[in-house]
């Protein structure tokens, strides 16, 4: 009986510590946690498949005004194009739960991606929110950059203008571009962690 109680106390302490760690997501400078998700074409993608490449994770919800700012202005697609041309793997992840804003069937997603002219390597479906919560993704957009060794090197906002105005895009400092450029040049990342801005991720 008592051994059980002790076990329960220890378990509670461990769970509490784990819950706190989870809410924050992985730390920059540490290996990015692995995951496997299915894309809108039905193909499976594991983070481990892309060791040797830079990987960008972008949390997306096309109903969100902050996401619209970056897609309607063409900013996100331009960055997707620019980086994937340099062999960066760009994974857009949708953690909107079924019935919530930004959730589409794979068929609907194909149409949306065409309309939005997404240039991501793949759009991954995470309707149960497991990978979103694993990474501590709070907003759309919320951006993560992983280096070829699988280490998380950036997490946070897309840029330094937390608004929904497309006019703010040209003058903004894009943190994702900066992190990739600095890392590729062998320099330390000047701003490895920033506060993401956007809509809340529509978890279930």
């Amino acid at each position: 009986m008592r051994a059980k109680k002790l076990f329960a106390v220890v378990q509670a302490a461990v769970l509490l510590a784990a819950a706190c760690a989870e809410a924050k997501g992985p730390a920059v400078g540490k290996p990015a946690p692995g995951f496997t998700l299915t894309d809108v074409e039905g193909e499976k993608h594991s983070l481990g498949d892309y060791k040797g490449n830079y990987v960008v994770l972008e949390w997306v919800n096309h109903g969100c005004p902050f996401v619209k700012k970056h897609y309607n202005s063409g900013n996100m697609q331009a960055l997707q194009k620019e980086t994937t041309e340099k062999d960066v793997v760009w994974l857009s992840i949708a953690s909107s739960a079924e019935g919530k804003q930004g959730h589409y069937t794979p068929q609907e997603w194909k149409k949306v991606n065409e309309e939005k002219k997404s240039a991501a390597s793949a759009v991954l479906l995470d309707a149960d929110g497991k990978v979103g919560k694993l990474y501590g993704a709070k907003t759309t957009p919320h951006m993560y950059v992983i280096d070829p060794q699988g280490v998380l090197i950036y997490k946070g906002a897309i840029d330094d203008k937390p608004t929904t105005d497309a006019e703010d895009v040209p003058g903004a400092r894009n943190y994702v571009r900066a992190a990739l450029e600095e890392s590729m040049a062998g320099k330390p990342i000047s701003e490895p962690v920033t506060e993401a801005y956007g809509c809340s991720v529509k978890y279930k």
Partner: protein
Amino acid sequence: LSALTPRRSSFAVALIVLPLLAAGRENSHPAHTRVSLVAEEGWIQPGRPFWVAVRLEMDPGWHTYWKNPGDSGAPTRVEWRLPEGFSAGPLRWPAPRRLGEPPVVNFGYEGKVALLSEVTPPAKLSARSATLRASVKWMECEKECLPGEDDVELVLRVKPDVPPLDPEAAEFFAAMRRRFPRKSLEWKFLAQTRGENIRLRIFPSSRERWAAMTFFPERRGVIDHSAPQGFGRTGGGYRLDLPMAEAVAPPDALQGVLTVERYAEEGGGAEAFEVDTPVEPGPEPAPGLWLFLGGSAVLVAAVLWIVRHKKGGRS
């Protein structure tokens, strides 16, 4: 309506009588937030500053944001378009509330809110009236978020003499001001890093007991918005343990708003204070605070278990 009758819920009463006040034109907008301008004084006397409220009224279930919106959202923005020679002071924000649940916690307002600005007219005015205009942009959210935008205006007469006190307007503005954080010389605040937290120590001006306290950081990226704030008593006052945001270095100063709540059985109600205090480096308990706490929990549990086990063995 008597302005002299003391009222507990005078804010609610003021909001009910508000439609009777000389409110600005309310533009119809297919949004979930309605915006209007309200002036504290009945007319403009040249050179005499007066307060104007930008009133936002949200549909039930909808909210708008404080100047730091928290984990998501965006602050309401007011762009004044005033007649020549007029100037508007900085926007004053009532104390916000915590909205939502981890992992996403926001700071904002539900129901009705008024953002205040002091407008100074020029010393010489020949016109018989002046039109104050403002472009207001906001983000309104329920389950989903929509950007809102409206242009509002308020026409005020210009008269050479001092405007008389309008008891209704005075009460409305007084009620709104009670929701604003105030600077206090009597309340003392000290901030110190403690491992991964900033410990804010709060020394109230009197021995009055407080049921709860909440800190709202003025800027993003200082503390973790969604983390629970460890509230408790400490020698001579209270403390809040605020988990720091992930950042390269701890902040030099803690700036924001502290709300303090009374016990319901002592009448309830809340007050809000402006906090601006340097963050001093504190004792470093352990590189991983959780390792330390987890280890302590295991140790305590083990000791308890052994003690009880021994007792059980003897009887």
